[in-house]
């Protein structure tokens, strides 16, 4: 008898442990946007079927259904709008163009390979003729593929975002700590915050070409123009949230700091930063979102070879496939924006946890 109770107990304990683990994993699932996995796992582990099924329905079924309804609505409504480039493309045409873009990328890869081969032959010939000094190895110079354009966009947005963060966080801390600095900065922030990237860009362009005169520097001008425009527009959420986070620190903590006679640096690193982190991250998350949104517009005008330029070029092409290709870009932009937001959310969760410990 006792043996049976024993196994029952261990089974019970194991079950408990399993559920604890599932509940712990839930935190990660939420960060990844996969929260429906929790009830699914619980169900698999033999938890009450009804509650879990309704959870799964809410977390997984409803979104999928909504997407299906959206696709169906799109597919039926789109062909009814006739533009001069033909009907608005439906999901099928957009998918076809996504495949086409992938094929274009492969074609470019083939061409790049052919180029490498030709280069190989040419250089071998030069060596055979004893003209080693004229041997050159050069990168392939084809049109950028869709993937390269996405990559350029990502690099640009992160570069701009990085500069924005480096400026906004210290400035925000200063504003939060000192009411005087805050009073000084406030009108400036309020005036520049609502300015559109399209207004900044011409100014940025002129300044960059005046200041950044070298032509074989690390960055191309179009890259800098777009990145700096991103910086100017994505600065504000971080700045404001950091200031808010810092200024709303628990007064007791500040008092403790005073009692311990902490110097400013220790005060900032040990007291201010940890307690302001959640709001700083909220600011960063907003900033990255703004930056990504702004980037597309900036790239269109600055001719930085990313997704914005892709959209612009396709619009200029005006071929029968252009609209569908632009929609591929729209969806790509949306999905990457979503992933970036998730990434920031994950970072936020990570740091906020450690801040609370």
């Amino acid at each position, binding site marked *: 008898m006792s043996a049976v109770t024993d196994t029952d107990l261990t089974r019970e304990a194991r079950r408990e442990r399993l559920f604890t683990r599932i509940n712990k994993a839930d935190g990660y699932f939420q960060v990844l946007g996969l929260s429906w996995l929790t009830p699914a796992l619980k169900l698999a582990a033999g938890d009450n079927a009804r509650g879990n099924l309704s959870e799964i329905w809410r977390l997984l079924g409803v979104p999928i259904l909504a997407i299906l309804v959206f696709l169906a609505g799109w597919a039926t409504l789109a062909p009814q709008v006739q533009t*001069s*480039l033909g009907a608005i493309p439906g999901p099928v045409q957009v998918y076809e163009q996504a495949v086409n873009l992938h094929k*274009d990328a492969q074609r470019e890869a083939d061409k790049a390979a052919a*180029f490498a081969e*030709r280069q190989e032959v040419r250089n071998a010939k030069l060596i055979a003729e004893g003209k080693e000094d*004229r041997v*050159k190895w*050069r*990168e392939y*110079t084809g*049109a950028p593929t869709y993937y390269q354009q996405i990559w350029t966009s990502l690099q640009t947005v992160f570069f701009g975002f990085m500069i924005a963060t480096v400026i906004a966080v210290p400035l925000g801390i200063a504003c939060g700590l000192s009411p005087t600095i805050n009073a000084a900065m406030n009108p400036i922030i309020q005036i520049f915050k609502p300015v559109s990237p399209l207004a900044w860009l011409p100014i940025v362009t002129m300044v960059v*070409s005046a200041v950044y005169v070298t*032509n074989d520097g690390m960055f*191309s*001008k*179009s890259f800098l123009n777009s990145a700096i425009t991103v910086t100017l527009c994505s600065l504000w959420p971080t700045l404001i949230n950091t200031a808010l986070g810092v200024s709303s620190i628990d007064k007791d903590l500040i008092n403790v700091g005073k009692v311990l006679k902490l110097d400013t640096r220790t005060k900032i690193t040990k007291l201010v930063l940890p307690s302001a982190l959640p709001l700083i991250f909220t600011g960063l998350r907003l900033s990255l979102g703004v930056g990504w949104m702004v980037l597309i517009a900036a790239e*269109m*005008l600055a*001719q930085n*070879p990313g997704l914005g330029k892709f959209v*612009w*070029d*396709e*619009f*200029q*092409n*005006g*071929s*029968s*496939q*252009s609209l569908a*290709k632009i929609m591929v870009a729209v969806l790509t932009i949306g999905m990457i924006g979503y992933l970036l937001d998730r990434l920031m959310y994950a970072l936020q969760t990570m740091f906020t946890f450690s801040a609370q410990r």
Partner: protein
Amino acid sequence: MTAASFALLATAAPAEMLDVEKDELTFGFIKLTDMAPLAVAYELGYFEDEGLFVTLEPQANWKVLLDRTIDGELDGAHMLAGQPLAATIGYGTEAHIVTPFSMDLNGNGITVSNEIWEEMKGNIEHDADGKPIHPISASAMAPIVERYKDEGKPFNMGMVFPVSTHNYELRYWLAAGGLHPGFYSADNTSGQIDADVLLSVTPPPQMPATLEAGTILGYCVGEPWNQQAVFKGIGVPVITDYQIWKNNPEKVFGLTKAFTEENPNTTLALTKALIRAAIWLDENDNANRPEAVEILSRSEYVGADYDVIAASMTGTFEFEKGDVRDIPDFNVFFRYNATYPYYSDAIWYLTQMRRWGQITEDKPDEWYAEVAQSVYLPETYLEAARLLVDEGLANEADFPWDSDGYKEATAAFIDGVEYDGRAPNAYLNKFEIGLKTGG
């Protein structure tokens, strides 16, 4: 010479690559079919044959393209013939731009919206088959412009850039039909002083969309944007620039003077590649055009549909839907010495800048010649051609070795006014509408 010995000669003189100073180059272009020499030189490996590694980059508009060339982001670009001249004389952004290579002849058209066309049609004579008789004069549009004026509505038309061929061609056509396209002055650069028809700038690829939106009632632009209007059913081309001025010079390949001075061999090498591309485009009676159209229709180049580009590139041009006419010389890339940079072509553009007030004061004939000589580089062109002939890649007979840079005087204009590049001031005085010397 037999074929065998010719082949032997070709192999006996191997392409000795020039020792280029700069081999990684970025060239800009606008999505127009006349960028073809660049796309062809790249795709057929002519740039590579010269040891050049070229990136071709579409630009948003002519202003961006020019500014990026001037500040060195682009090493060279497909330019409007007026751009190097205007930049050099300091109209707009000032910089010394030169050109060793003219890219093509003709290739533009004037399109009006469907409504305007319906009204115009009544003023145009038709032949026995019921087709309008060409060329159509702007005078057919005059009553409509008059009506717009009476109703107090502006009659707007689009062109692509203040110093573009299209601006001057549209103005030429309007003025030849008795309509005033407006003057520029030192302090009013709108170009709409005294205008019957108000002209404004729209980038080429946006022309059809702007016409469709009703912002403009017509436009003058390069291909494929006239044929695009026909395909989309939003407008009707009324005249091509070939009918306004037979074999008029169109785009040029522009580089900064500084670039050509620092990189003389690179300049020669890229001119060679471009000449080869031009030869290929016109070879055997346009036999390669379909292949060229396929290249151009790729989204990284012009990107419009194959059929739209083919409509003008393969020797025909569709006016009203269904009214397809043969214009074998609609765009010429090599024959008639299309690629040789003639001083007289440069001077024609300068005369038009003076005619409409972009050049604000009278200039002596010598000034015109000097500007042309500082911008157009026929010596570089001929040097490149000589190398190609020596390598067996081009025919001796195809180049005007002894030209002094001036074309014969010609009266092949829609209004029959004779142009002689040696006497620009006398030419200006022949026009009824436009600024005159001393006036």
